[in-house]
């Protein structure tokens, strides 16, 4: 059984394409999403692969890698790795705002899941916040928000094309909880946070991801190759996700107990601060700032 856990905060600093490959969507290359909610996600297997490749690129000791992640593919049947990497779940999604440039948007359902997941990880210090309720036409913002607009005695928040009525609320508990998993250098959460209804949040994560057209050029003609135009979906920069890594006693390799695995992993991730996840690395995509605790 799992003896230890680590919580991983992932903040995208460039657009991320963790591709699904199996979905028929309106774009050619959609991103991974949860089936039942439609929320963007990064599957545990993708994340584990990204972590392993970061370890291997750093030239880490093979015995340590085998203990944590399991043996190389050709020897996969020998023993399993000591960690179980959970799917990265969305916590904050960036949305264009008429005032304050952009907002970090979240919703009650996402916050409740975050609380439940932190309880599962044994982090009751993070899971101690109240979740506000919010109607479809409302936006809950903390005092001092830079997103609000006053018009005809009404306070509004305009996100993408949606006009929402602003409701000020004490969100400091939530801000404190989220700040614990935000990587260093992201310090404007309190000014940009907004809680919208589950429905509105769903619409944003479905319709406000980045869609880019990409082409391949036929060098002999200088024009687009046959079949060389495709549309690709990205999770935008400034998205915050989190994942839980559960750690058990190693079954092979050179590490002896879960504590050793935890400290190797934590030490490595703390030294890294950046992780490359998903496709399109060579066109600058998939860079995430990480925090581990």
């Amino acid at each position, binding site marked *: 059984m799992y003896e230890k856990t680590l919580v991983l905060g992932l903040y995208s600093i460039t657009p991320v394409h963790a591709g699904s490959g199996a979905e*028929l*969507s*309106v*774009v050619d290359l959609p991103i991974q999403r949860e089936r039942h909610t439609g929320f963007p996600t990064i599957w545990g297997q993708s994340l584990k692969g990204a972590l392993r490749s970061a370890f291997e690129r750093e030239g880490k000791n093979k015995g340590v890698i085998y203990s944590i992640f399991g043996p190389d593919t050709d020897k996969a049947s020998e023993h399993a790795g000591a960690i179980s990497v959970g799917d990265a779940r969305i916590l904050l999604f960036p949305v264009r705002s008429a005032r304050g440039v952009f907002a970090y948007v979240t919703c009650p359902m996402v916050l409740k899941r975050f609380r439940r997941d932190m309880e599962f990880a044994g982090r009751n210090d993070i899971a101690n916040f109240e979740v506000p309720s919010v109607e*479809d*036409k409302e936006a809950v913002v903390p005092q001092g928000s830079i997103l609000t607009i006053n018009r005809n005695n009404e306070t509004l928040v305009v996100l*993408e*094309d*949606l*006009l929402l009525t602003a409701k000020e609320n004490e969100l400091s508990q939530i801000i404190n909880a989220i700040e614990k998993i935000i990587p260093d250098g992201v310090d404007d959460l309190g000014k940009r946070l907004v809680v919208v209804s589950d*429905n*509105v949040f769903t*619409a944003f994560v*479905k*319709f*406000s*991801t980045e*869609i880019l*057209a990409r*082409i391949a050029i*036929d060098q002999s003609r200088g*024009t*687009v*190759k*046959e*079949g*060389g*135009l*495709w*549309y690709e979906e990205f999770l935008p920069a400034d998205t915050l996700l989190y994942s839980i890594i559960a750690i058990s006693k190693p079954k092979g390799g050179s590490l002896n107990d879960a504590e050793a695995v935890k400290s190797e992993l934590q030490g490595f991730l703390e030294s890294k601060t950046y992780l490359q996840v998903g496709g399109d690395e060579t066109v600058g995509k998939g860079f995430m700032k990480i925090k581990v605790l």
Partner: protein
Amino acid sequence: MDIRTLEQQRAEFAYNKVLEVSKKSEDIQKKYRSYVRSAPTLILTNGLGQTLAFYLSKIGNSDGNYEKIDPGNLEKADQKAHAYLYKHIAEWLDKKIIHSENPIEYYIRASSTEVLMMTEEVIALLKWMRRFADAMLKGDERGEG
């Protein structure tokens, strides 16, 4: 009562419309296919209202009567293809959500939650349109695969 799933109804509608276009000239088929492929990206990036207005500008119907666009009366293949696509989207919205023949006029008056519903419905329809257009229409030799 119609007990088929919404997806089946969208598929039927998209299939019939694309089948209709497949009987037009090769030029119109190529253009229509390419516009259908880029439509979701246009909508997701610029919004439904902007996209519909863009199609109208491409159709260039100077008498301003957007309820009675007749692709047959237009001159160029790209005008016709845009007109077909606009009409198909408008017809589906009329049927399923807005019960009005003029989506632009409806869009202007709609609440933001209604706009979300319209957008969601058009995207869901375009998923089918794209599949059928890829399968049934002539494609451009270069570019769109």
